[in-house]
């Protein structure tokens, strides 16, 4: 199992992408997609990545729901800043946040979440001090942003990956 | 009635996406620095991709989807290559 499918979720994902691309559920295409998945997983295995340690699917689902809601909220906030610049009472700026998480996959997920949400952008990360720097468009309260990142995302991500 | 709603909403959406492509093109020309142009190019191709999806809805053909997928992939690679060029002055080290 682990020899032929070192990353089972990734292989499954590749197969699903293949089937979506061809818009079919024909057995021949399922076989082709499965071959693609196995080859892709083995190629990735050659890169000698550290194991993901992904365990808690329920926590991951909760994180996904939270992220979707937050992105919707920040969409509205950023749209308001752009369309009604008069009502804006804060300037943009950088926020430094010290993290506790060390898992590279957790950090990658955090980077994607922060950058995908409008209004925040991952700028720099210092692995020695475990210090993250983000840019915030609507910087009213620096402490509130620190609390958002550490409490809303980091704890859940640590639960998932560590 | 539903045909009217669909026709007009697709037309309005195409208009909005076209205007946003023009905005991105304006920023692309105006600069002032290279990173602003790259960011504008990124916005440009995302909006072009969405416009192609809207064209697909108008014509009822799925060919446009494949073009949009191609734009999404090429745009990603080109933006990353340009950003890498900004960082070092070379794409491949």
């Amino acid at each position, binding site marked *: 199992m682990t020899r032929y499918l070192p990353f089972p979720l990734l292989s499954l994902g590749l197969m699903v992408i293949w089937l979506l691309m061809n818009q079919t559920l024909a057995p021949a295409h399922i076989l082709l997609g499965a071959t693609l998945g196995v080859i892709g997983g083995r190629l990735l295995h050659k890169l000698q990545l550290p194991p993901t340690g992904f365990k808690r699917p329920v926590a991951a689902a909760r994180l996904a729901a939270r992220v979707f809601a937050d992105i919707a909220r920040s969409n509205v906030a950023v749209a308001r800043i752009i369309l009604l610049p008069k009502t804006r009472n804060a300037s943009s700026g950088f926020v430094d946040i010290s993290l506790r998480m060390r898992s590279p996959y957790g950090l990658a997920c955090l980077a994607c979440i922060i950058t995908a949400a409008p209004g925040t952008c991952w700028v720099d990360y210092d692995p020695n001090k475990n210090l993250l720097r983000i840019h915030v468009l609507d910087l009213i309260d620096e402490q509130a942003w620190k609390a958002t990142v550490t409490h809303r995302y980091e704890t859940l991500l640590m639960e998932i990956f560590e | 009635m539903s045909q009217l*709603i669909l026709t007009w909403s697709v037309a309005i959406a195409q208009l909005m996406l076209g205007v946003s492509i023009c905005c991105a093109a304006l920023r692309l020309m105006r600069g002032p620095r290279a990173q602003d142009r790259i960011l504008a190019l990124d916005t440009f191709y995302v909006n072009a991709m*969405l416009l192609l999806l809207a064209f697909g809805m108008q014509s009822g053909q799925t060919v446009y989807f494949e073009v949009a997928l191609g734009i999404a992939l090429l745009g990603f690679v080109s933006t990353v290559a340009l*950003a890498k060029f900004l960082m070092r002055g070379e794409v491949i080290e």
Partner: protein
Amino acid sequence: MMIDADLPLWLATLIALCLLVGAALSLTGSIGLLRLKTFFERIHSPTLATSYGTAGVVLASILYFSALQSRLVVHELLIGLFVTLTTPVTLMVLARAVLHRDRYGDKTRAPGDERRSTTKR
């Protein structure tokens, strides 16, 4: 050019709503690209188009083609997947490149720069 698909009224309204919300969000993002003052403020505006802007248009397309061909057409999800996965990467690489340029100054100046100062962000 008239679309002559005969869909139920509620579905057509839903499709129109998704499409218009997505297009309006993308337009807002592009306006922000023109309106915001500094580069690091502008870097936030394309995410409007790539998050729920794309989601709206893709959802409208899925609903429309599924109703039109009376089967589930979901291959537009691929576009949504690619865009949500690639945008953070592009923006992060770009942000890091800009930091690098600001830090190390004129050595890495690219063609097309009109401003020579190194401290301006």
